[in-house]
């Protein structure tokens, strides 16, 4: 049942993806002057290069043939050559930058989700206290605030006022100038470490669920293996000669991650609070209480677990909002990911790169959508049928 559901969702997302890519194609053709003028009217290009582009893109062919070629090219990752980084292929630029955005979003989203979930939960549970009013007001402010304004506040407070975090770039050039290390490789290693830690946590959670029915043992297994894997990876990076460079990259990540976290945190918290307040009124909560379960168990196992479902749904809906916030965040922090690429390439009229960035940002959002859908199916037994 579950597999069938997941299969269906993957198929749907795949269809959406094709439609999305097609829409990008027609958007490009609908631009003033047409794609041909747009592509070749770049002063940096020599006539030979212009000729090459026209041939490579088949710009003299009929529209439908161009469309077929374009679809073929996109799905074979043949996205053309960037103007502004001539002659680097667009795909190489995207392959370098996409992981940065994925990391920024995943880390920020996970933090925002868990913090928002936990705070929304306890706000609803301890209703009527001053903390509830204060946090709700703060939540609504951060939820409705104009994103650039929020970023300026963050930059001013942490970068200038406290002066503890670096304000721009992906790394500190003064540090990296003395080495011939490739930052991208280090970054990918960091990403890999995080994936491994995540996998260990997921595996230990599944194992704990399967092999023990005692809550305490389950927790022990989960926390112990998580802590051990984190300590182990920190130790590994510590002794490795490139640890300091990894630390530099992470250090530069703190503010952008914090900003994206704040952008998506408030939504999670507010929805969780509302949903929890509704759930508490449900009859099965009264049942749980009547069973004589401790307050904490009623709150976490019964109320919060069920109240979480609308939060996940809301997350899907706010994905677009978070992405647009991410574009602004990346740009203002000069974090060279997909968001910044999207903006810069559009401003520089680097259309192949802009199209590539647009396509892959879309793919990223669609995949995030798919992941959340699958997670939701695991959370809500009613959806699987």
């Amino acid at each position, binding site marked *: 049942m579950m597999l069938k559901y997941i299969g269906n969702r993957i198929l749907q997302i795949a269809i959406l993806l094709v439609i999305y890519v097609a829409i990008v194609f027609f958007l490009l053709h609908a631009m003033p002057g047409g794609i041909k003028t747009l592509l070749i009217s770049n002063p940096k290009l020599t006539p030979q290069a212009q000729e090459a582009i026209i041939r490579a893109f088949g710009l003299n062919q009929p529209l439908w043939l161009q469309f077929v070629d374009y679809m073929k090219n996109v799905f074979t990752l043949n996205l053309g050559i960037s103007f502004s980084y001539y002659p680097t292929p667009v795909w190489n630029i995207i392959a370098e930058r996409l992981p940065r955005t994925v990391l920024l979003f995943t880390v920020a989203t996970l933090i925002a989700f868990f913090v928002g979930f936990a705070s929304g939960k306890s706000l609803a549970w301890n209703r009527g206290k001053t903390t509830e009013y204060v946090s709700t007001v703060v939540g609504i402010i951060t939820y409705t605030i104009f994103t650039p304004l929020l970023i300026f506040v963050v930059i001013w407070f942490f970068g200038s006022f406290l002066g503890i975090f670096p304000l721009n770039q992906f790394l500190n050039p003064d540090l990296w100038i003395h080495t011939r290390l490739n930052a991208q490789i280090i970054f990918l290693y960091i990403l890999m470490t995080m994936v491994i830690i995540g996998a260990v946590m997921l595996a230990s959670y599944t194992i704990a669920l399967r092999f023990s*029915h005692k809550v305490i043992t389950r927790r022990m297994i989960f926390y112990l293996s998580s802590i051990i894997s984190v300590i182990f990876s920190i130790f590994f990076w510590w002794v490795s000669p490139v640890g300091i460079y990894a630390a530099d990259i992470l250090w530069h990540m703190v503010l952008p991650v914090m900003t994206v976290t704040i952008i998506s945190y408030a939504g999670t918290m507010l929805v969780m609070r509302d949903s929890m307040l509704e759930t508490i009124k*449900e*009859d*099965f909560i*009264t*049942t*749980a*209480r*009547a*069973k*004589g*379960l*401790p*307050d904490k*168990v009623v709150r976490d196992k*019964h109320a919060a*677990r*069920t109240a979480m*479902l609308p939060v996940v749904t809301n997350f899907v809906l706010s994905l677009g909002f978070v992405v647009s916030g991410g574009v602004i965040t990346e740009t203002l922090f000069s974090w060279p990911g997909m968001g910044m690429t999207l903006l810069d390439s559009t401003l520089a009229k680097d259309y192949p790169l802009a199209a590539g960035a647009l396509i892959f940002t879309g793919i990223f959002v669609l995949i995030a959508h798919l992941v959340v859908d699958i997670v939701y199916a695991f*959370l*809500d*037994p*009613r959806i699987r049928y």
Partner: protein
Amino acid sequence: MKPILELRNLKMYYDTQAGQVKAADDVSFVLNEGESIGLVGESGCGKTSVSMSIMKLLPENGRIISGNIFFDGKDIVNFSDEEMNKIRWAGIAMIFQAAMNSLNPVYRVGDQIVEAITAHEPNVTFEEARQRVANLYKLVGLDPERMDNYPHEYSGGMKQRAIIAMSLACNPKLIIADEPTTALDVIVQDTILRELEKVQKKLNMSMIYISHDIAVIAEVASRIAIMYAGKIVEMSDSVVIFKRPAHPYAIGLMSSFPSIRGEKKELVTIPGEPPNLLNAPDHCRFAPRCPFATDECWKQTPSYSEIESNHFVACFHPQNLKKLVNMNA
């Protein structure tokens, strides 16, 4: 016979913007071990409020104003939540009025019953608890294979049976069944009630049945207490109440329901509006609808009189049903 539950002048009020809702006012009764009592009254008369007071699961605006609730010899009115958690389910279990929504949609039904067992008996292993649930499933007429299904895969009747199985999970001394069958069709209703009665007798548990349908209750409970507007107005053995109801409200109530066995009765409907418990008056609360009301009834609340052995009525003018029927005829 040892009393398992005793309510002594229990007053439970809700605070609302409009004033106090006196949902339970001077409610008293004694329930012995192995005995069953039926609490009957029309919608809104405070039946659920009484049972929630016994479980001490009141909403934020509900308060026990005064009175005592003795369970197993101890007054639980001032018990803390932690102390109550030991009594809940292990001592007093409950079958809720809204059985359809009483199960958490995201957990397997069997696991929700196992949870109740392991919460109160930490030494029971998961497998032992599951075995016990399987036995309970058989007892209430459910296929133990369905333990691993989710609530949405159950029909209404199955959910109801599962909840009954859940209420039996910790061998409680007392079960409160708040309209355990209202959502079901008449045939299933009858079977489930009978099963419940059988189990109760077999396990020698005490039981409080709550319903607005006196005919249904009379078949399963040995004693009946009739509630009107937050007060018990008449209480006696089921047979006595059924044959010789004395309170005008009880007489009206008796006649407005056809028995599920299909016996037809003269229909004497109760005229007037159901009472409003908001800022309830100091006189007899049934007076506005009572054909026999006199000045006395509008001045003070009647106290209980024992019109025959173990038959209590709170009325200034207890009636005789036989005479009334003859008069009408």
